[in-house]
Structures are given as C-alpha cells and as structure tokens.
C-alpha cells in the first residue's frame, strides 16, 4: 500500500523540510519512502509544494502527487479549494489555522467521509521558537491526525536534522502540536449547516 502526501506552504515555512522529515521517519519506521519538492527558484513567501510517498514496496513513482491521501496546508492564506484538488475519498487535511475545523471544511469544500486536523501552528511556533516557522508543528499535527508515521521516529528525524537547543525546541513543538491538534471526521451535517 502506498500513502501519498502533498504539502502546501510558502517559501520559508519549511514545507520541504517537513516533507523530508516525514519520509525520514517512515524510513526509520522500516518503510520505503520518497520526499521531494516541486522545484522552483524558491523565494521566501512564494507558494511552494512538496510531496511525500510512503510504501511497503521499494518501487515508488517519482511523479508529482496529484491524488493525495493526506494534504498538509502550512499557511492559513492557502485555505482555498484549489489546494485540495485530487484529495482521495476519505482523505485527511491537516491545516495550520485558528479557525474551527467545521468552518475550514466548508471553506475547503471537503466531502463527507474526509477528516480534518487543525492546529494553531503559527501560535505555537511563536511561543516556543519565537519565529513563525510552522513546519515542525505541522509534523505533530500530521502524526496526530493520521498516524502515518510514529511520533517517536518523527522526533528522531528532526533531531537528526537539527542538533542542540534548536532540536530540543522543535521536538517540544512537535509534542505540543500533537497534544493540541483537534481532529474531526466530516459528516454531511457539518457541511449543510
């Protein structure tokens, strides 16, 4: 089985690093995985996308993810149905926002059966890192909402990437985000309200 994740963020928020950290965690979990960005001449603030694929099989396509199982939206300004295109039935969307999940579901026009996880990753990042770098918070939210990789190896992957104090702060951020993420399943009633 293959799980496909698509990441939407803005340059500087760490979408690419997060996509890689999830693949690293999956590899540490004993799976095969690929992570790669949609490459552009990266500029701070420009919309970026990245992809992660996790599989039990070593043969994984190296094409852009067009039908994701999981979508991660790192920037609240990217809350638009355009970014949820191709989301598989019963897929999960993980969003950095302060808005209620039910409202987000309507904004993104999610279908019944899909799931949504919300976290105020910007707030958490400002509190813990004192910087609006939201990617590690989104990792905690992703793990909570989907369990696609283990929390333990997600922390390990981040510690392999960032050493010392920065590593510790980011692990704390993952832990807090994991705890504070709210996950709901989208039911018909939610959408017609």
């Amino acid at each position, binding site marked *: 089985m293959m799980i496909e994740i698509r990441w939407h963020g803005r340059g500087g928020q760490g979408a690419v690093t997060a996509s890689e950290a999830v693949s690293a965690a999956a590899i540490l979990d004993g799976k095969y995985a690929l992570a790669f960005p949609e*490459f552009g001449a990266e500029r701070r603030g420009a919309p970026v996308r990245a992809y992660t694929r996790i599989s039990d099989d070593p043969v994984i396509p190296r094409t852009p993810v*067009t039908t994701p199982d999981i979508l991660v939206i790192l920037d609240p300004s990217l809350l638009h149905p355009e970014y949820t295109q191709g989301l598989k039935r019963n897929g999960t969307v993980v969003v950095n926002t302060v808005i209620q999940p039910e409202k987000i579901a309507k904004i993104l026009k999610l279908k019944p059966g899909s799931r949504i996880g919300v976290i105020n990753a910007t707030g958490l990042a400002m509190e813990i890192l004192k910087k609006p770098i939201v990617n590690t918070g989104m990792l905690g939210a992703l793990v909570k909402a989907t369990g696609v990789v283990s929390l333990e190896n997600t922390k390990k992957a981040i510690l392999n990437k960032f050493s010392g104090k920065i590593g510790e702060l980011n692990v704390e951020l993952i832990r807090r985000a994991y705890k504070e993420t709210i996950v709901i399943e989208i039911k018909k009633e939610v959408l017609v309200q």
Partner: protein
Amino acid sequence: MTLAVKEEIRKGLRKPMPMSTNTAIATAARDLDVDVVSAYPITPQTTVVEKIAEYIADGQLDAEMIHVESEHSALSAAIGAAVTGARSFTATASQGLALMHEILHIASGGRVPVVMSVATRALSAPISIWNDHSDVMNARDSGWIIAFVSSAQEAYDTVIQAFRVAEDPDVLLPFMVVYDGYLMSHTMEPVITEDREKVLAYAPKRDYPHKLDPKNPLTIGTITDPNWYYEFKYQQVEAMKIALEKFREADREFGKVFGRNYGVLECVHCEDADAIVVANTSYATTLKYIIRDVREQGMKVGLLKMKLYRPFPVEEFLKATSSVDTVLVVDRAISYGAPVQGPLASEINALYHSRGLDTKVVSVVAGIGQRAFKDDDAKYMFKLALESRKAVPEETIFYGVRK
C-alpha cells in the same frame, strides 16, 4: 535485493538511512576514501560537494578539497591529481558539464580514471535550472564510461563500482555516474551504506601505471603526429570493450559482496511483451511502478531500464528486446535537425538496422526542462508503444509540447 539482505534489514542488522541521491553520492566518495575532490558549485549538484566538505571537516574523510574558479578547472585539477596516483572525484551538472567539455576528452584520451557524478539539468539559453538530459547527451561521445542510475541506493552503489572499473589497469577510463537533477538529486529516500573496509576491499586503490613522479619524470598528453594519433584513439575503442566486460564482472561481484546489483540493464516483463518502453533514471522508476497497472489492464508491455550507456551493452539489449517488434524510446534531450531527434532512439534505431533487424523504434522526447511527467503520461507511453506496432510514427514525437 537478495533475501539475505532483506533478512538483515528485518533483523535490524542493516538500517537504511534517509538521504538524497546527492548525499548518497557524497557518502560513497567518503566510503571509497577518495584522496582529492575538486569542484565548482552548480545547481543541482552543489550539495554533493558540500556534503563531502562536511565529511572532511568532521574528520570522516581525509581528503584534499580543491576549490577552483570554474568547472574547466575542476576537472583539470581532478585529472592532475589522478595522474599522481590520487583517487580523484568531482561532480557537476548542466553548464558545468558543458564548460568541462574540452577537458572531458583530455581525461579519456589521457586514460585518467577520474569519477564524476552528473546531476542532469537542462542547458541555456533560455536559463533553466530544471532537469533534462541535454547536458549528458552532449557529452556522450567524449570517451567516458557513462552509467545512468535510478535511485539514491543505485547511485551510492554505482559510484563504488565506477572506481573499481575506472581504475582497473586494463580499463583506465573516466567514469560518469548520471542521475536526474531534482527528481533524484534532492529527493529523500532510504539508502544502505557499507563499511569502508568492505568497500575498499571491493574497490581497492590501485597503483596508477604511469603516474607523475619527480624522481621519474614523464610527460602526459604530448603532441602526437598523424603517424600515431589514430592508434591512441583506437586504444580507447578497445578500452571501452574491456570496460563492458569489467563492468559486468564488477556488477556481479558487487551482488555477491553487498547483496545488490543492477545488471548492465534491467528488463521488466520483457519475455512475453508485444512492445517495450526504453527509459532511464527517474523515469524508469516511475514506469516500473505504472507497468503493474497497465499489465493488470491486459496490456502486454515491457520496460527496459537503461543502466550502462557507454559502453552500450549491445548483446544484452538485443537479447532483451528480441521478442518484440516495436520499442518506444523516451529521450529527454533533443538532437536538433537529426533524422531521429531523440538521441537514444537514434542509436537504438541504428543498432537494429546494423544487425539486419526490422524492429520498429518509436522516438519520444519528453520532460524537456523538467516538463512534468505524471502517472498518466507514463501510462500513455505504454499505450503508444502498443499502438505503434501497426504504424510506427515516422517522426520524433515531441510529447506534451504546445506547438
């Protein structure tokens, strides 16, 4: 991967680590204990030599890192180091490989076993930092051994094989390990690395036979008059033949020692196929994934993944495609104005004709400047290969272009 290796992974004796192909290549250079690395940064290669610099700074590799002012100098310095007997490595891409062009021929003509990794990228103008194979296809006649790899693991393994073959006293040719910029260079995936002792036992440092030595002076690359130049060039022809045999042997041995090998090419579902798609690097992986779906839909297609490109594994290629009447070749470079404008397709066409075979060759150009190649595109390649059996397109298909 052999069952024994899979079992070792399961037991946790071997742990695949997440790394990009660029990091995997740098790690191979570390594990091969290279002596000299000379390089000039260019996207998307740069992180290869950055990682090597890190290994040197951390004390994991005892090598001389030479910072030069251009790729022309990078390869020149690597050659200079190699002819003193140092194990030498460099890396480049795109304009960098183009700027090296003059020195590529000096490396092969001088029989200097430098190993270089190439993270393929389009050529200017207009500027594109993205992937295609224009750079490496421009270098195909430079006398280098050229191998295409399709994963970070294969890149790691092939750099190790490359030093063993290049430095073989019966070969002494430079070796280029080629992979896709971005689609592989910056993609994270699992890689198993090996102990340096084991790597060096497989690819031992050898004594370069005509090395520069102040105590025993000699000159390399002197002017050679019409009476002898041709013989030097013909020796390169012969060396390529030997390189093919040595590469086959090195690959088999690699499989025995490390439990992984790739052959000079790989064919998937070729035995009972009606048509075969030929591709390399990242496209081969994608097509290998998609072929399962199209096979399930009843399309009798095969996939041939090109690994060794120079020397071209003629016998293996002909054998692998012997059962089909049509092959479709996906090229990611354009041979402008040529009769067949996909360079690999052109060669394969020539090969069949030279052997008196009437196998049809469909030439498809795709992925120029990293124009996206998605799952549906991969599916279409198989479909087109089958459809072309009835009537083969006369001209190269420029797939996905806005005309």
